[in-house]
């Protein structure tokens, strides 16, 4: 399907090698403001803070983390856009913010070209998950339940995922009651409490699946899930779109190359180092780092933005 994403995935490892070779002679001219688009204390926030901490102790750079949450990362993007681009202001969000969300909110006046992509840190392990106690062992069981007349509630945490859930139902000839909640944690809470029958989880399900409480029914990615490689992908289920996405660090547009390279390689190195605290939790939740940098990242963000319209179009029918 999306040729670019596949190429980008292939570039993950080579990209990683390439960036670590660049010597970091750049030093930030002042403290670096780190805008985090996730609520404090959650997994993503912890990841961002630990990366900042590791860089502070390794390179002596001073980070000032700050929460700028809401509107699917657009609040962070809007705040970051007007910051100075000398490397003293960066943000952490997800690639979806710069793709689907910016395309879906044309009035906000934000485009990927307003930003300088630094690096991704990890790809989501986006699965369609339900409680093990529901007795579903495969996605076919879900389809059978729906066709048997059961009204199924499908928890999603973003408009793009809602579109995907809708297309999944359409491809399988069933109707889901799609329930939007705030964040992957809320999907998991809803599923655990029985308010939702199934839903998207982007890595948060790893512990529950390992413990046997939760089941990965399908992979919403273009590739199988690391934890449950047997679960069908969305392509297998007849949906030609996927939820591939990454955590990403960005800066305002026009960041000088030395600052961009230094920041990107420093962050990517910490994320990929499984012995570091940040690398450790990335390994635990996402099965390892995925660091896309430089032009590949720029292209990835642009592609996400320009292809979003198609998904919206298909999902509105």
């Amino acid at each position, binding site marked *: 399907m999306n040729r670019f994403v596949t190429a980008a995935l292939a570039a993950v490892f080579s990209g990683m090698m390439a960036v670590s070779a660049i010597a970091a002679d750049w030093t930030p001219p002042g403290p670096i403001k780190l805008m985090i688009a996730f609520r404090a204390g959650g997994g993503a926030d912890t990841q961002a803070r630990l990366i900042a901490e590791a860089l502070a102790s390794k390179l002596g750079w001073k980070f000032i983390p700050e929460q700028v949450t809401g509107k699917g990362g657009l609040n962070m993007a809007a705040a970051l856009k007007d910051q100075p681009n000398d490397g003293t202001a960066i943000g952490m969000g997800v690639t979806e913010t710069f793709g689907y969300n910016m395309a879906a*909110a044309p009035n906000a006046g934000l485009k990927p070209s307003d930003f300088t992509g630094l690096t991704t840190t990890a790809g989501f392990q986006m699965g369609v998950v339900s409680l093990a106690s529901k007795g579903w062992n495969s996605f076919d069981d879900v389809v059978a339940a729906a066709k048997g007349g059961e009204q199924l*509630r499908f928890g999603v945490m973003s408009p793009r995922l809602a579109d995907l859930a809708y297309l999944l139902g359409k491809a399988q000839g069933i109707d889901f*009651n799609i329930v*939007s909640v705030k964040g992957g944690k809320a999907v998991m809470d809803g599923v655990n*409490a029985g*308010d939702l029958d199934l839903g998207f989880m982007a890595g948060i399900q790893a512990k529950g699946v390992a*413990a046997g409480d939760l089941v990965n029914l399908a992979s919403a990615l273009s590739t199988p899930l690391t934890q449950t490689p047997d679960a069908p992908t969305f392509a297998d289920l007849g949906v030609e779109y996927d939820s591939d996405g990454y955590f990403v660090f960005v800066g305002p547009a026009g960041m000088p190359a030395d600052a961009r390279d230094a920041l990107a390689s420093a962050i990517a190195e910490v994320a990929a180092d499984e012995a570091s605290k940040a690398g450790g939790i990335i390994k*635990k939740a996402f099965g390892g780092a995925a660091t896309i940098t430089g032009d590949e990242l720029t292209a990835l963000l642009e592609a996400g933005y320009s292809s979003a319209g198609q998904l919206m179009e298909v999902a509105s029918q």
Partner: protein
Amino acid sequence: MDTLDYIVLGIAAVFQGPELFSLFGLPVSVTLVMIVFGFLSGIVVGATPGLAGPVAMAIALPILISTFGYTPDALLPVMGFLIGVMKGATVGGAVPAILFNTPGTPDAFMTTLDGYPMTRKGQARKALRVAHFSSVSGDTFSDVVLIVCAPFLALLVEGYLDLPEKTALLILSLSFIAAVIGGSPAKGLISVGLGLLAVFIGTGEDFYPRLSFGTEELSRGFPIATAILGILIVSAVFKELEELWREKRASGVIAPVAETGDQRLRFADIRALFPYIARSSVIGTAIGALPGIGSTLAATLGYTVGRSRYEKTKTDGDTEFGKGAPEGVAATEAANSSVSGANLIPVLSLGIPGNAAAVFLILAAESIGGFNPGPSVFRFTSDTVNPELVIAFGLFTSMFIANALNWTVGGLFMRSMGVMIRVPKQILLPIVLLLTLTAIYVQETRMVAIWFTLGFGVVGYFMRSVGISPLPFVIAFILGGKLEETARQAFAATGGDPFFLFNHPIALVFMVLSAAVIVFTTRKSREPG
């Protein structure tokens, strides 16, 4: 592995964890030290006007996690510290409410109603003793209930409440709050309406931040701390300063309040207070067990029930509720303190927090890993050890250690915070204001948050001036987002059924009660007297 084995393992996990140092040859585990440390910091933070437990937890959590790392061994020391802060802040929170009429948390607001009048009558230390005794009693009772009921009760409650019922329950909470607080349902509804409006600005599902006039300042909505601290604390500071200013203009001096009479808590006092503490403990525990309904409603209900009982039993000459009755302090403190234990029932068994303290416990568990709050926690396995259940019993043990500290040294330590009453108010209140604004800035790091807080302070001041209670505003602000979310989800989950609130029997009952409570209190407030 039966229940007893798990209890033993849980206790052992606390006492025999990694050793920090040894005292008289006995090893002292790091968990134990963290509980003590958390408890004492909790009291200091709770007793500091403008600060509250969640602030301390928010600041401490990243530090703790960095210190202890991401192994299951870190769970008990970190969560032990948080439990210590939670319990310490609960008793400590009564101090500024009683001494300075500045509640640090919404639930401490009801404590000001009688606690502060007691201070003005020179009974500050007695009020503190009553608050401490009631708080610890309620807390201990609640913990016992937690341990007995956790595995069963939460699953039962959750089993009967689906999304439509949860939506209806939130509506019922709001209309109840509007009707009972402040004695005027009309003003209560206005307060709720303003609180809801405030929380709906800049939020919402759509990418355009609604009601923001297109400004960037409003596009992220009002941070919760600005609304709560502005409406409750800043407005109280304004009001108090105004009174000091009038006093000064009228008499030329600002008179300090001297302590008079017996400050001790006698056995007779305890006997008189006991019925209030007992009722409120039960109320607080029951409310705490419901996910999402926090200590503020418990405090309000405890106080209201206490007041109606008091009206029936008091003799002429007894101090009225709201004028400095120790029973009022006891009813409130027992109720809000008994929420914290029971609140962990849905937290541990479903992973759903009912208050800010519980949120931080979940965050700690989630960040560290190895403990996944949810139905799996209470799976009693027969052949293998369920490590999460061991942690759960370790947490229960931590709670009882914190309670033991609370009964022994808590009261003394808390009253030593009362030294702050010697500070003249016209000096302390401005410092509280600066502390509050600084605390907000440290969290939000934007000047506009300070301006918001100031704005809420002015709104709260005018509300107080015309007799509108600020508390329903704050509760509505807290529950508003949850209400909208739950309603959206219920609507979507029922397949777009516009009558989802009325065609589920339990939801319908809640809705009827919501209307009834407004109608009933309005009619009652029209009656003379």
